[in-house]
């Protein structure tokens, strides 16, 4: 099958518009709920036939859930490796569901992509419901996720234990099954060498951080995903409020760091960020991490009003569309690393030329 991305509402990335609060620092806010359908073994333990039955039941339920009734169902188990990677690059499927290193995803793996929500099926848990919002908006994401979860819970019997709450494959998710996270860009804190303190502080506050692509991914381009660590023993509202409060504080620290940078190192920073822009604008070959780091610099330049004429939306788009699977799709074939580096530079050059008006 060929993945037709034009079918996806917003390309499955409602956050990319950068229309939410603090969108230059917070790329997206996400609430994820893990659920399992009662009566079936959890997906990793289930037989293929069981996972396919789970998918059939979820499909039936999704057709009756208002937030998913017009969603597109993508069968991850029927996709090529590049297509699976592409969905992963859009944060629509996890590394686990995408089986990035395997020849194929396991039977029954699928994702529903709707206007406001996405629903992974047969990941580590039968259901991983995700709501993304642009910018800093955890409460908005939670409100929508709760609505969809209630609907699905009326349509499908979920595995629930009166003492342990919603049951999940891994006990680190049990209880609420809720992981609230924000994807933040903290170059100010990295440049002022404050980031270590902030990250240590997060852990003391019961939160954790990862790289751009969540679990197991490296921190690159000064992007951090901050989320709650525990899911049991507190209400969903408490978990979301706590994350929101701490993240507000992180945003304030980042803003302060940027103020100090422009006060104490104004021209050095300005020169550095314009050099990043210049490289992106004219380079003929760009590595994946290199592009991410340069985009981080330009993003900081736009956020500090040093670089004009470029929208945060464009920067979000560049971040996603300059990745390997997206480049392979637009070139129409799998790319070697060298070919990808050339295609990446060509793509970024093209977008920046158009934006600056001399394309």
């Amino acid at each position, binding site marked *: 099958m060929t993945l037709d991305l034009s079918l996806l509402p917003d390309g499955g990335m409602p956050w990319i518009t950068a229309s939410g609060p603090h969108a230059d620092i917070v790329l997206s806010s996400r609430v994820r709920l893990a659920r399992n359908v009662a009566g079936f073994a*959890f997906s990793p333990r289930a037989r293929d036939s069981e996972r396919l039955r789970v998918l059939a039941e979820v499909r039936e339920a999704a057709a009756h859930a208002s937030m998913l009734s017009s969603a597109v169902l993508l069968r991850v188990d029927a996709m090529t490796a590049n297509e699976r990677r592409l969905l992963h690059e859009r944060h629509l499927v996890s590394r686990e569901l995408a089986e990035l290193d395997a020849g194929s995803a396991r039977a029954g793996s699928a994702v529903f992509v709707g206007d406001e929500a996405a629903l992974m099926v047969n990941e580590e848990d039968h259901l991983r419901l995700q709501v993304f919002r642009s910018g800093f908006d955890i409460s908005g994401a939670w409100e929508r996720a709760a609505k969809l979860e209630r609907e699905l819970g009326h349509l499908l019997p979920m595995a629930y234990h009166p003492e*342990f709450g919603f049951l999940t494959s891994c006990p680190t998710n049990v209880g609420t099954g809720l992981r609230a996270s924000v994807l933040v860009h903290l170059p100010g804190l990295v440049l002022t060498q404050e980031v270590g303190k902030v990250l240590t502080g997060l852990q003391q506050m019961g939160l954790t951080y990862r790289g751009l692509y969540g679990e197991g991914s490296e921190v690159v381009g000064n992007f951090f995903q901050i989320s709650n660590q525990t899911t*049991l*023993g507190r209400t969903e509202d408490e978990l979301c409020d706590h994350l929101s409060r701490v993240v507000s504080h992180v945003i304030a620290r980042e803003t302060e760091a940027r103020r100090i940078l422009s006060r104490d190192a104004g021209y050095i920073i300005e020169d550095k960020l314009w050099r990043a822009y210049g490289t992106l604008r004219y380079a003929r070959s760009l590595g994946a991490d290199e592009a991410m780091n340069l985009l981080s610099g330009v993003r900081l330049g736009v956020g500090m009003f040093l670089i004009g004429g470029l929208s945060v939306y464009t920067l979000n788009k560049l971040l996603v569309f300059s990745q390997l699977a997206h480049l392979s799709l637009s070139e129409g074939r799998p790319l070697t690393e060298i070919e990808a580096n050339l295609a990446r530079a060509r793509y970024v050059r093209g977008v920046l030329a158009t934006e600056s008006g001399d394309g």
Partner: protein
Amino acid sequence: MLCDQCKERDAVVHLTQIVEAEVTQLHLCEKCAAAKGIETTVAMPKHPLGDFLHAVQQQASPALGDPVRCAYCQTSLRDFRETGRLGCAQCYTAFEGALRELLRRVHGAAKHRGRDYAPPPAAATATNALDALRQRLQQAVASEEFEMAAQLRDQIRALE
């Protein structure tokens, strides 16, 4: 079971070696297995909280009264220690004692305080559960897993 080599850590790798028609069993911990160059999947468990959970998970020991295996999906506490994952919802009941302690360490609490949940009308749910059990029974018979088939038969009777 302790590691045959160091006699200190829990054995998690079980090797059956055949040397000159002699079968020997070797039980090793992760470290000694790695030292012998035996690749294990235990070294990189796929769980989200990294070394922290791994450490806790290794301590998950059977509580008094907990069975060795979950009757529904046959997952053992040892399987859980290796993968960091439980096999099905019934595992939470089967290993309740051990899990309560583990959850307290991981989450700082063992009691759910989030949303309450009541499944949709019981008839539908019971039918689903029965259907699933019946299907598992058929599969178990087909693959000649008679011990499991007997357990499933008892569960179906109880639900009917």
